[in-house]
C-alpha cells in the first residue's frame, strides 16, 4: 500500500453514471421521469398563477384536462416506460455463463460456474467486460437485496427462491454494491465490490480460483497458517490447499488480493485484519464470527500477516 493516494481505488457507488446495461435502462427512466416531473410542476404552477390572475371561474374543461386526461396520459406513459425498463433489467439470457451469489448475514458467497467447476470466492465479484453474465441470486438466511447501482438494477434475494438476472458490464473498473434490504444489525455494513476485467484478465482470475492458495513461505507466515489450522478458523473458512470444505464463512483463499475487508467496508491490510480477528463483534456487530481475542499477540500478528499474504 502506498498511503492516502490509494483512496481512489475504491469502487464508486452511484446510479448517475452507468457501466452496465441494466444501469443504462434505469438511468434513462430516471432522467425521463425527472424531466417529466419538472415540466408538469411548471405547468401546474402556471395554472395556479392564471387562476389567481382571473377574477371569474374558468371553463370546466380545465378540470377534465388537467385532473383526468393529463394524469392518465402521463401515468400511462410511465407505466409503459417502466414496464419496458423492468423487462430490460430482469431479462435472463439462458446461454450466458452463471455466477451464483448467495447473501449471508453479513457477507456474500460467490460461486463462478456453479454447474461446472464451482470456483468459490467471497465479497468481490469479478465480471468479464462486455460479456453477458447471469447472476443467480440466493440467500442463506433472511431477505437481502443485491444492488450495484452502476452496473445493474436492484434484485431481492428471497429465502427458498433463486432470482436471476443477466447483466453486461460495459466499462472496466471497480464498482461498489450494497445490500439494499434491511437484514439485521449490521445491514449497513454489508457491501461488496464488483471488479470488471477484460476477457484475458478474467480468464486468468478464474484460473487463479482453481489453483491452491499462496504458500506460507516465511516462519511468521507458517506460524500464521498453523494458528489458522489450530484455533478453529477452519470450522467456517476454507483456504484452498490448506483446509477445504467449510462454507459457513467467506472463502479466504485470496483474501489478501481483495481491496476490502468485512464485505466492502474496510481497506484490506494487516492492521484491519488484526483488529477484525481480535474484535469482529465491535467492527461488525451481530456477525456470526466470534471475536478471537484469546490469541497471543504474536499469534494474532502471524495470522493477520498470513491472511494478508494470500493473494
Amino acid at each position, binding site marked *: 500500500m502506498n498511503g492516502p493516494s490509494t483512496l481512489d481505488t475504491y469502487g464508486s457507488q452511484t446510479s448517475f453514471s452507468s457501466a452496465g446495461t441494466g444501469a443504462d435502462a434505469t438511468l434513462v427512466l430516471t432522467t425521463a421521469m425527472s424531466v417529466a416531473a419538472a415540466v408538469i410542476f411548471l405547468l401546474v404552477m402556471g395554472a395556479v398563477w392564471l387562476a389567481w390572475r382571473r377574477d371569474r371561474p374558468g371553463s370546466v374543461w380545465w378540470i377534465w384536462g388537467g385532473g383526468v386526461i393529463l394524469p392518465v396520459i402521463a401515468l400511462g406513459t410511465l407505466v409503459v416506460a417502466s414496464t419496458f425498463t423492468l423487462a430490460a433489467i430482469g431479462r435472463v439470457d439462458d446461454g450466458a455463463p452463471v455466477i451464483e451469489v448467495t447473501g449471508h448475514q453479513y457477507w456474500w458467497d460467490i460461486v463462478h460456474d456453479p454447474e461446472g467447476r464451482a470456483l468459490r470466492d467471497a465479497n468481490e465479484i469479478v465480471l468479464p467486460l462486455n460479456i453477458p453474465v447471469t447472476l443467480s441470486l440466493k440467500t442463506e438466511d433472511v431477505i437481502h437485496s443485491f444492488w450495484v447501482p452502476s452496473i445493474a438494477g436492484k434484485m431481492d434475494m428471497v429465502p427458498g427462491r433463486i432470482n436471476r438476472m443477466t447483466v453486461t458490464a460495459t466499462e472496466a473498473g471497480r464498482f461498489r454494491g450494497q445490500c439494499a434490504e434491511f437484514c439485521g444489525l449490521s445491514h449497513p455494513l454489508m457491501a461488496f465490490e464488483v471488479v470488471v476485467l477484460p476477457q484475458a484478465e478474467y480468464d486468468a482470475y478464474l484460473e487463479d480460483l482453481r489453483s491452491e492458495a499462496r504458500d506460507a513461505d516465511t516462519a511468521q507466515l507458517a506460524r500464521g497458517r498453523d494458528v489458522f489450522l489450530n484455533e478453529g478458523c477452519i470450522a467456517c473458512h476454507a483456504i484452498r490447499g490448506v483446509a477445504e470444505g467449510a462454507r459457513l464463512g467467506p472463502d479466504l483463499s485470496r483474501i489478501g488480493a481483495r481491496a476490502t475487508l468485512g464485505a466492502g467496508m474496510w481497506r484490506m491490510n*494487516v492492521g484491519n485484519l488484526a483488529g477484525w480477528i481480535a474484535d469482529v463483534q465491535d467492527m461488525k456487530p451481530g456477525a456470526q464470527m466470534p471475536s478471537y481475542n484469546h490469541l497471543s499477540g504474536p499469534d494474532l500478528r502471524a495470522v493477520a500477516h498470513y491472511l494478508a499474504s494470500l493473494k
Partner: protein
Amino acid sequence: MQGKPVVPLTLAGVAALVLVAITLVSVWSLAHPQRDPVGNALAAMGARLDGVRSWYAQGPVEASPDWQAMRLNVPGGDAARGRLAMVEYGCGACHVIPGVASARGTVGPSLDGLARRAYIAGVLTNAPGDLTRWLMNPPLFSPETAMPNLGVTEADAADMAAYLYTLGPDA
C-alpha cells in the same frame, strides 16, 4: 626606635584626598563631555539593567520558547496527511483516534491525549523519533505485542506521529 613620621594618614587626610580626586575628575569631565568615563560606565550599566528589567517585565511565559511544542515537533511530519494515512493503514480497527474516520476500535488503547503520555506501549519514551520508529515496526520494540508491523513507510510514520501529537497536548 622612633623615626620621623611620614605624612600621617589620618581620616581627615583621606577625606581631603577623595575630595580633591572627585573635584579633579569632575572638572576634567566638564571640560571633555564626550570623554566621560564615569558617565559612560553608568550608562552602559543602565542599559544592561534595562535589558534585564524588560526581560522580567515581558514575563517568563511569553518570552521563553514553547518547550512543549518543540518537544512534540516531528521533523518532516504533516499532520493532515497523517490523519488520512491512519485510515489507510487501518489503525482505527484497534484504536479510538479522535478525528480519524471510523476509528473507534477497542482492541488497543485509545490514542486520545497521546501527546501527554510518558511512554509508548510501555517500552519507548514518548518522543517524536521513538513514536515514528514504533509505528514502523512495533514488534521490534515489544516482541509480545499484538500490534502488527503494518509496513508503514518512514514518511507515513512521521506524518502519523505528527497527527498523533495534535491529540491533547493542551488539555
